[in-house]
C-alpha cells in the first residue's frame, strides 16, 4: 500500500474515532433548538389550581420563565425545590413572571402534586398538547426564558439544579432584568 493510501486510511479512521468520541462524551440532552431568538408562541389555558384562564399576552413586556412539568415526571420532583427557590429569588421584581405548564397530566394528579410539593406561582394546563408542540417540547422538565420583547432567549431540557440553576439565574435571567439577584444563589 502506498504512503498516500495509508495516510488517507489513517485520516478516515481518525475522523470516525472523533465522531464516536463526540457521541460518547457529548451531552445527550443537547438537542439544538431552532426557537432561540424567535417569538414565543402565545397560549392560553386554565390555571391548574383556580381554573381561571391564563394567557402569555397578559405578561407582555416582562421576563417570563416557562417551566414544563408533570406529576408523573421524576426529574420534575428533583428540580421542584430549585424552581421554588428561583421564584423566591426574583418574585419581587415586577418585571419577572414565572409560569408552570402542566404537560400530559390528569388534573387531580397535578393538583395533588402542587399541594404536596408546594407552589408559589401559577400553572397553566396544556390540555391538548398544542402548547408543548408550539414550544418544540420533547419531554419534561423543560424550561424557557422569554424576554421583555417576547422572544425566547433560553431553553433547557432537564432539571434546573446545580450549575444549571446558577447559569440560568446569573447568566440568563439576571442580565435580562438588568439587576443581580439579591440573595445568595444555591446549587
Amino acid at each position, binding site marked *: *500500500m502506498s504512503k498516500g493510501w495509508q495516510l488517507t486510511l489513517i485520516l478516515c479512521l481518525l475522523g470516525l474515532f472523533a465522531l464516536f468520541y463526540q457521541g460518547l462524551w457529548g451531552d445527550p440532552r443537547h438537542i439544538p433548538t*431552532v*426557537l432561540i431568538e424567535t417569538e414565543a408562541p402565545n397560549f392560553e389555558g386554565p390555571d391548574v389550581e383556580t381554573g381561571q384562564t391564563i394567557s402569555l399576552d397578559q405578561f407582555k413586556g416582562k421576563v417570563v420563565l416557562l417551566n414544563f412539568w408533570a406529576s408523573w415526571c421524576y426529574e420534575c420532583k428533583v428540580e421542584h425545590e430549585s424552581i421554588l427557590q428561583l421564584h423566591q429569588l426574583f418574585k419581587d421584581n415586577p418585571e419577572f413572571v414565572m409560569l408552570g405548564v402542566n404537560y*400530559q397530566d390528569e388534573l387531580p394528579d397535578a393538583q395533588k402534586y402542587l399541594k404536596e410539593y408546594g407552589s408559589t406561582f401559577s400553572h397553566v394546563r396544556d390540555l391538548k*398538547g398544542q402548547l408543548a408542540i*408550539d414550544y*418544540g417540547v420533547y419531554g419534561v422538565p423543560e424550561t424557557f426564558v422569554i424576554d421583555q420583547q417576547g422572544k425566547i432567549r433560553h431553553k433547557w431540557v432537564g432539571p434546573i439544579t446545580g450549575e444549571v440553576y446558577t447559569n440560568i439565574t446569573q447568566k440568563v435571567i439576571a442580565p435580562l432584568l438588568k439587576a443581580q439577584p439579591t440573595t445568595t444563589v444555591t446549587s
Partner: protein
Amino acid sequence: MSIRLTWCLAALLTIPLPLFAAVQDETEVDIQVREIAKTLRCTVCQTENIWESGAPLAQQMRGVIRDRIALGHSTEEIRAYFLSRYGDYILMEPPKHGVNWLIWVAPFLLLLAGGFFLYKEVTHWVRDTPTPPSQPEPPLDDQARKRIERELES
C-alpha cells in the same frame, strides 16, 4: 338437496371471516394525516414516525396535523410548522441541503473509495505475484501410451 345445502354451508365456513368485514373507508383527511405523520419523527421514541408511534406526544402531534388540515393548511405548511418548532430533527428524512448532503452522499463515496482501494490492491497483488516459468510437457512413456490406446479401443 339438503346434502347440497350442507356442502354449500361447509364451503362458506372455509372462507376467512375478515372477507365479510365491512371496509372502513379512510377519508381524504385520514389519508393526508397518515401521509404527513409518516414523514415526521416521534421525538420521544427511537426511529419511529408519529404515525406508527403510540406515545402520547405522537398522538397529540397527529391531532395537531388533523386540526391544521381542517383549517385548510397544505401538507407543506404543516411540515413547515413542525420544522419551525423542532428543526430538522423532526423529519424522518434529513432535508437535502447544506451539510446534510454528506449524509446522503457519504455512503456512496465510501463505497466508491472502498471499491477503488480494492481494485488498486488487487492489481498490485497480481502485478507483484511472480509467474512460474513455462516448462515443456513431459513426453508420454510407453506404458502410458499403451494404456491410452487400450482405453480408446475398448
